[in-house]
């Protein structure tokens, strides 16, 4: 493989350089470099009367406020907690689905998987909006609950943390199912037969063979849900109601409502620091997965 790659590369050195350099420079300029600017702005002072409302200093006032005001710490912890619970909810829904699809007859797997991904191709915003209608006071869910006669006053799910878990699980389900399916599908069916042959009952075989072998899929899926969920804005904003404290919302409000760019930048930098470890883990997992092919 590498020998071939070298041969091809020798044929077209400029072609090789271009395929690497063009996307590399683009991403450096438009994805990596901005973080340096965010870092610089986060250290500056908020000056509402200038355009833009920032004066570059090295005061670090925003960070002092970030540490000093307990609201921010609470928002970070809350975001991590909500993202973690939502990730587990997504895993609990996604794993049995991925498992069943991977065990379905070969001709069924493509369409079944397609049906999981299909909603992802329609608007994210509109799918969250759909849940507003379903979860509201007189929404479909409560109509069904009342109609069934089981519950007289079901209360309203909209505006609670449960609505956020549900929204995240709904919006991110394909990102959980796809890596899980990939790791479950490539598992050799003979391994489960070997386990049964050696005396393992189905549940034991699942626990000792299937589950550990699907661990890369579990890690990949969970990271794909957890990391963006920590900084999620639309779902807590539309489904969580006014009381919900999540860091993505805090950043949004600092920027759009208060116009405090340094504070918003400091919040973003702090979020980045929290997420660096899981992002590196995610990149490593992806690199390993590709090397394994």
């Amino acid at each position, binding site marked *: 493989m590498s020998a071939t790659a070298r041969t091809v590369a020798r044929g077209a050195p400029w072609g090789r350089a271009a395929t690497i350099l063009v996307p590399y420079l683009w991403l450096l300029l438009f994805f990596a470099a901005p973080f340096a600017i965010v870092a610089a702005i986060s250290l500056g002072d908020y000056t509402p009367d200038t355009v833009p409302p920032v004066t570059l200093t090295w005061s670090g006032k925003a960070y002092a406020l970030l540490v000093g005001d307990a609201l921010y710490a609470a928002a970070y912890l809350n975001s991590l907690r909500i993202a973690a619970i939502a990730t587990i909810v997504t895993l609990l829904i996604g794993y049995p689905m991925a498992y069943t699809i991977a065990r379905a007859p070969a001709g069924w797997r493509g369409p079944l998987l397609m049906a999981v991904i299909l909603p992802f191709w329609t608007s994210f915003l509109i799918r969250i909006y759909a849940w507003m209608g379903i979860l509201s006071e007189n929404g479909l869910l409560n109509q069904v609950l009342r109609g069934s006669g089981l519950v007289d006053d079901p209360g309203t799910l909209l505006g609670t943390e449960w609505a956020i878990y549900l929204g995240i699980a709904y919006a991110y389900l394909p990102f959980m199912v796809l890596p899980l399916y990939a790791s479950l599908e490539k598992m050799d069916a003979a391994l489960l037969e070997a*386990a049964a042959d*050696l*005396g*393992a009952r189905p549940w034991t075989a699942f626990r000792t063979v299937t589950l550990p072998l699907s661990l890369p899929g579990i890690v990949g899926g969970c990271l794909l849900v957890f990391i963006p969920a920590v900084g999620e804005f639309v779902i807590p904003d539309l489904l969580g109601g006014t009381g919900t404290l999540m860091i993505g919302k805090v950043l949004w409000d600092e920027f759009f409502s208060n116009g405090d760019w340094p504070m918003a930048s400091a919040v973003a930098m702090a979020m980045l620091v929290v997420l660096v470890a899981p992002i590196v883990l995610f990149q490593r997992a992806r690199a390993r997965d590709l090397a394994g092919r």
Partner: protein
Amino acid sequence: MPALIRIEGVIRRFGDIVAVAGVDLDIQAGELFALLGGSGCGKTTLLRLLAGFEAPDEGRIVIDGVDMTGVPPYARPVNMMFQSYALFPHMSVARNVAYGLERERLPRAEIEARVAQVLDLVELGAHAGRKPHQLSGGQRQRVALARAIVKRPKVLLLDEPLAALDRKLRERTQLELVELQRRLGITFVMVTHDQDEAMTMATRIAVMDRGRIVQVGAPAEIYEQPVNRFVADFIGLANIFEGDIVGRSDGLLRIRCGPLGGEIAAPAVAGLAGGAVSLAIRPEKLSLRRDDAANTGGLAGHVRDVVYLGDESIFHVALQTGATVQVTRMNAQRRASAAITRGDAVRVTWADDAVVVMPQ
């Protein structure tokens, strides 16, 4: 003594395909039994029926006096060595071997002792901590074997156990497996498509074709007395002709066979008294001589081709009757000065008892 394994009228269908089309078979304790056949003959399905991965549509399987109908794989007194080995990639060699014992909830100390013992037996004691991907093909094969025998099953099922090994290693391992089987006293049931492997290893062979067992017997019996054309053709090389029984004398059948130069004699076979039959003559049972004044018997012909195989050569001889036969000769001398070569005029002869008569 009742059979250890009794297969009674077993049928297994997959949709329209009948993989196993009615098999009756008894296998005795202590046998090294081979199921031999080409791809798609149903041998692997039969093995999987024994392991419990498939359930028969009809018939039943009894192992050691217990009807296995409805008994799941994890509760059967048999273990299997998979063709792909199916080693658990996330577990070390020792953990792979311990897996089956852990399912029996044996005490930790006993598990460790038995794992160490069986790993020594297959000479992998030094590799207990390695993962399967760190082993060579031959070592993986021995892990798979160790994992299956550590549970001391009544029957060990082997699905093409040596197919993934290269030729040298395969030949050595064949004898090691036979030796191991004698030492452990476990009954082996082995699936193979390789007739040499079956002949070398098995005490008895069942030749399968299209879901049925065609012939069961010891290797020599199957080679020397094939019951039909399929078996004669499948096992070893054979020259096969059509003929008609025209009479009987001195316990020999008289058979008219144009390609062999008219009427020939062959040993009588029970149940065959007249009509059209097939004849088989193994190539090593034909003799080849130069066609000159000293040699006048047999059929005349000329050598069309010689295939040199080292220990022996195969001569393709075009007979004057129009037929072509294969004749094998050992290359006993390193340089035979009188070697027969391509184009030489020859005479082919055989003894009466070299001819096997089979129903058509």
